[in-house]
């Protein structure tokens, strides 16, 4: 202690009221970082409010029927008697999402099991970077390859134009594959070791262990992986738009062209006048996207509350 401070009583040295300036600096730092954190809340609320009001405008100020919007399959906002039935796009979005999940889920979970159970030593070394690189490929590149390779291929093999629900499904399933695989891998590797050992100890084969013990135990997280992949598929715009064909009618087969919420927004947002009815109904479609991403989050929350390991 310096002589000067030594002569002071501890109450003069150690109480908060005796040296405020240092504590003020400390508080300033805290408020600074709190402000950045609050900005995240602000942004989220702003997005919800802006998209909410804008998305409801078509129904409130333009008199579009919400019932027609959600039940009719006829979409033609520029006709003399404009029609605003969003069903083809809503169904289209759900169709590509579910179909792509049907492909990506077994592949992704299979890949995860390969990395954690079948070949943990070298499998992970190969697949991990592959997955990371797949995540890094921008969606327009997926779309472009779909357009220049997959669509002609489908045209030649299954017939039709090639632009189809099928093409969208394939492109999306590859796009969401890394998401599903990496989360499924985390799920499998966080299972306790004892689970495997006790199953092998009673004479089960590796497949029996995987199928009867490990997969059921990891199920909530595996489902989370699939739901996260579906959320990504549901919201993807450009890659799907480039291969799906973008028609306004309901597809009757998987090889028919189709459209989704995102593709119709992508195509028409730039062509319609801001504030017009045709433009406002696009915001209503965007509101459905927003609501769906909230639903996906609720679903994920529910699943993670059921996590066992």
């Amino acid at each position: 202690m310096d002589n000067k401070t030594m002569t002071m009583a501890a109450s003069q040295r150690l109480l908060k009221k005796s040296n405020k300036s240092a504590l003020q600096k400390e508080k300033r730092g805290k408020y600074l970082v709190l402000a950045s954190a609050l900005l995240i809340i602000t942004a989220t609320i702003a997005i919800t409010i802006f998209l909410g009001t804008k998305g409801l405008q078509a129904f409130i100020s333009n008199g579009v029927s919400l019932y027609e919007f959600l039940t009719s399959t006829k979409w033609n906002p520029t006709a003399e008697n404009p029609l605003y039935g969003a069903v083809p796009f809503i169904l289209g979005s759900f169709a590509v999402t579910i179909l792509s999940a049907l492909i990506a889920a077994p592949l992704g979970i299979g890949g995860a099991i390969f990395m954690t159970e079948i070949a943990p030593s070298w499998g992970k070394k190969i697949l991990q970077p592959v997955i990371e690189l797949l995540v890094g490929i921008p969606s327009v590149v997926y779309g472009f390859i779909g357009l220049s390779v997959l669509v002609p291929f489908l045209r030649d093999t299954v017939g039709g134009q090639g632009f189809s629900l099928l093409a969208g499904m394939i492109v999306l399933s590859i796009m969401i594959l890394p998401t599903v695989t990496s989360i499924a891998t985390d799920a499998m590797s966080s299972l306790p070791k004892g689970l495997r050992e006790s199953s092998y100890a009673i004479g089960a084969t590796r497949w029996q262990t995987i199928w009867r013990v490990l997969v059921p135990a990891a199920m909530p997280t595996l489902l989370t992986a699939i739901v996260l992949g579906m959320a990504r598929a549901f919201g993807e715009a450009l890659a799907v738009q480039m291969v799906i064909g973008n028609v306004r009618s309901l597809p009757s087969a998987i090889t028919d062209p189709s459209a989704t919420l995102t593709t119709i927004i992508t195509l028409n947002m730039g062509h319609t006048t801001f504030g017009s009815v045709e433009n406002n109904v696009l915001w209503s479609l965007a509101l459905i996207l927003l609501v769906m991403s909230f639903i996906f989050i609720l679903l994920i929350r529910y699943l993670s509350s059921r996590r066992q390991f």
Partner: protein
Amino acid sequence: MKTVMEPKRTNTTTEQQPRSEKTETKPAALDVKHLNIYYGENHAVKDVSFSIEKNAVTALIGPSGCGKSTFLRSINRMNDLIPGAKSTGEIQYDDVNLIGDDINVVALRKEIGMVFQKPNPFPKSIYNNIVHALKFNGIRSRKKLDGIVEESLRKAALWDEVKDRLHESALSLSGGQQQRLCIARTLAMKPNILLLDEPASALDPISNAKIEDLIMELKKEYTIVIVTHNMHQASRISDKTAFFLNGVLVEYDKTDRIFTNPSKKDTEDYITGRFG
């Protein structure tokens, strides 16, 4: 000297004064009165009262989880970092209660320094490890900093070993040297009290011995409170020993008395190695 305080839960204001009747009176550096520490539901330190002497080494012994480290960490308020930790009672230091909400913990930790079980130097040079906190406190003059670095390294008996490589990484030092660097770094703050949390337990026997020699040297200038698992270490270096069990201070007395003629059965059992 009365060694064990009966639990007194009701008030902390009225104060019994048994320690004034001890024979060799050294002034108290810290006066602990009815200290209780909780981690959430866990009552980790239970109604502990005793006083820690100035310029002496006080050893805190007891089995793992007995509350001795928790107690030590409450003196310089390191427990504040643990969510859900709560303390009641008093640790009187000069004219303030260290447990109080009005304590500026930053100023407190400069006066009551702490060295941890595992050496934890910053990944910086030896020199910068020592000046890190000095610069924060506004000491900028190179000459002054150099002086303090040398002084504290000498005090920590490390100067001769590192004087030619002050600007090398602290991580290049051996474990024992790193721990002495951590002590030097704390001494550079010119503290009044040193809290040592098992400072030698992670080290080899030779480093261990060096740390013990160092502690014997340092007690001339500083009040030292040391937590140790090592019974021999406690008996070699400390003047007073406090034995904790399940959060309770079972016995507190001069070290030689604790180790030769403890008044409690639990103490005897522990130091003769029957448990812990």
